[in-house]
C-alpha cells in the first residue's frame, strides 16, 4: 500500500459514562477510497468529528501527513487539508451559493494572498464541476436537497483538501441523485483526493470503496474489501441483530 495519509490510533471518546468510541485504530492511504459503515449510533459521525476537530478525542492519537493533530482546533485541521461535509447540510443561509464557497477560499486557500486572488472566479470553477453553476447567485436557503448535498461537497472542496470526509452525502436522495453524487466523488478521487465515505446506502459504499471498516457500539468489528465485509458474520449480526 502507498503512503499513509491519516492514522487514527486507539482513539477513545466518552460522553459522560457513555463510551462512543473505544480504541478505534485505522489507517487511510493517500488516494484511497475508504468506506465507513455501521448501524445507527455506532460512532461513525463521532469518529469523523474527532478527525475533523469538532470533538476532541479523550485518548489515542490522530496523525495526518505525519503530524499529530488531535489537539488542533477544527479550523487548523482544514488548513492542513482535512475537509468534511455534514450529514444534515449546514449551508451559510444568509449567503448565495457562490459566497458559501468564497468563505473557505478566503480563510483557507488564499488567506495570505487575498488581494491577488479572484476568489469568486475560483468558486465559480468549483461550482461548474459540481453542476451548480446556474445556482451560483441563488440564496443557499432556496436549494433542493440534492443541491444542498452538492453544496456541502463543493464547499468542502473549496478548501482544497487532501482528505475529504463525506458524511452521508447521499441519505434521502433518489437513485439517480445518488449516482450523480457518486460520480462527483469518483471524479474528485481521480484528481488525487483521498475520500472517506460514511454511508448507509450499501450499494453506494460497495461500489465506491476500495476498503471498508464497520463500526458497532464504538468498536471496529470488521475491516476488509467490500465483498468480504458483506459476507462477514459480525457485520450481519450488527445490522440485522440476528
Amino acid at each position: 500500500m502507498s503512503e499513509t495519509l491519516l492514522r487514527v490510533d486507539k482513539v477513545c471518546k466518552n460522553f459522560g459514562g457513555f463510551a462512543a468510541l473505544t480504541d478505534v485504530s485505522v489507517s487511510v492511504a493517500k488516494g484511497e477510497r475508504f468506506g465507513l459503515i455501521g448501524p445507527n449510533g455506532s460512532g461513525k459521525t463521532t469518529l469523523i468529528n474527532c478527525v475533523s476537530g469538532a470533538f476532541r478525542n479523550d485518548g489515542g492519537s490522530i496523525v495526518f501527513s505525519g503530524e499529530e493533530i488531535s489537539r488542533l482546533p477544527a479550523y487548523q485541521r482544514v488548513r492542513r487539508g482535512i475537509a468534511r461535509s455534514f450529514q444534515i447540510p449546514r449551508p451559510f443561509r444568509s449567503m448565495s451559493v457562490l459566497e458559501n464557497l468564497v468563505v473557505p477560499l478566503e480563510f483557507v486557500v488564499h488567506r495570505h494572498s487575498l488581494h491577488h486572488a479572484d476568489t469568486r472566479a475560483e468558486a465559480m470553477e468549483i461550482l461548474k464541476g459540481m453542476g451548480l453553476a446556474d445556482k451560483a447567485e441563488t440564496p443557499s436557503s432556496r436549494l433542493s436537497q440534492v443541491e444542498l448535498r452538492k453544496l456541502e461537497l463543493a464547499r468542502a472542496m473549496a478548501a482544497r483538501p487532501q482528505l475529504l470526509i463525506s458524511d452521508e452525502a447521499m441519505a434521502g436522495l433518489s437513485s439517480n441523485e445518488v449516482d450523480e453524487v457518486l460520480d462527483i466523488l469518483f471524479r474528485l478521487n481521480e484528481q488525487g483526493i483521498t475520500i472517506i465515505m460514511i454511508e448507509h446506502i450499501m450499494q453506494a459504499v460497495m461500489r465506491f470503496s476500495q476498503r471498508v471498516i464497520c463500526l458497532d457500539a464504538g468498536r471496529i468489528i470488521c475491516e476488509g474489501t467490500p465483498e468480504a465485509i458483506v459476507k462477514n458474520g459480525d457485520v450481519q449480526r450488527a445490522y440485522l441483530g440476528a
Partner: protein
Amino acid sequence: MSKARSAVFWIGCAVVIALATAVALSMKAEYYLLAGYVVLQFVILATAWNILGGYCGYVNFGTGAFFGVGAYTAVLLIKSYAAPLPVQILAAAVMGGALGFGTGLLTLRLRGIFFSIATVAVAIILQTVVINWRYLGGATGVQLLRPDPLWPFANYAQMLFVLGAILCVVAVAAARYIGTSWLGRGLRAIRDNEEAAECTGVPTLKLKLIACAVSGALMSVAGAPFAMYQQYLEPAGAFDLNYSVSALAMPIIGGTAHWIGPVLGALLLGTVQQVVTVTVSSELNVMVVGVLLVVFVVAAPEGILGLSTKLWRWFARAKAAR
C-alpha cells in the same frame, strides 16, 4: 467592494461632517444641538452593537457597561490629568476594546442566551465597582465643569454636535469595512452556522474576539464625551440598561444585515425618543422603544432594510407587469 462605491461613501462622510459643522455654527439654540448629539450618540452605539450582534449573531446586552466605562475613563482622565478630549476618547477606545476582548475571552465560549446573560452581569459588576470608587464620585456621582470650546465653536454644544458627527463617521466606516471584508464574511458564517464555519477554516473564536473588541471600543468611544455633555456623571446614568435596550432595538428596527440599518434605526428611534420626551413625557419615550421593537419584530423582522427591499421588488414587479 468597488472603488466607485468607496469613493461615494467617503464623499458622503465628508458631506455629513461638513453639514454637521455648518448646522452647528449657524444654530443659535443649544438645545437642538444637544438633542442632535444624543441621537448621534445612539448612531454610534447601534452601529457598534451591530458589529457583534448583527453581523455575528451574538446578542450583547451589556452596551451600558461599555458606555459607562467610556464615560468613567474620561472622568478619571479629567480628574487626574485634566486630559484633553481627544486623549479621553482614545483612552476610552482602548479601555472599551480591552473590556470587549476580556469579556469575549471569558464568555464567547457560551452561545446564545448564555452569552447575553453574561454581558448583563458585566454591566452590573462594573456599576458596583464604580459605586464603591470614591475618587470617581461613588454612588452620588461627580460634577464637572465644561472647558472652553475649541475654535471655531462658540459654545460646547456646537462642538459636541460636530464631534458626534465625526465619531459616527468613524464608527460607520469601521462597521462598513468589517461588513464588506473577509472579516464580515467570516462573522456571517459564524452567525449562520458556527460549527460549519469552523470546519470551513474560519477561526471562530478569534473572529468573535475581534468583533467583540471593536464593538466594545466604539461603544466606549460613544460614552467618552457623555460626562461633559451632562456636566455630571453618576453610575446609574452611565451604566443605564436603557442604553443596552436601545442599542439592540435600533439595529433590529433598522435592519442588521448592512451598516446602514443601525444608522437608520438610530436616527429614527433616537429622533422619535427626543421628540416624545419634549412633547409628551420622558417616561413615554422608553415605551416608544418597546412598542416599535415589538411592531418590527412581528411585522418586519428584517427591519427597515428588509421592508424597503421588499417594496423595491414589489415596485419592480409592478413595473414589469405593466
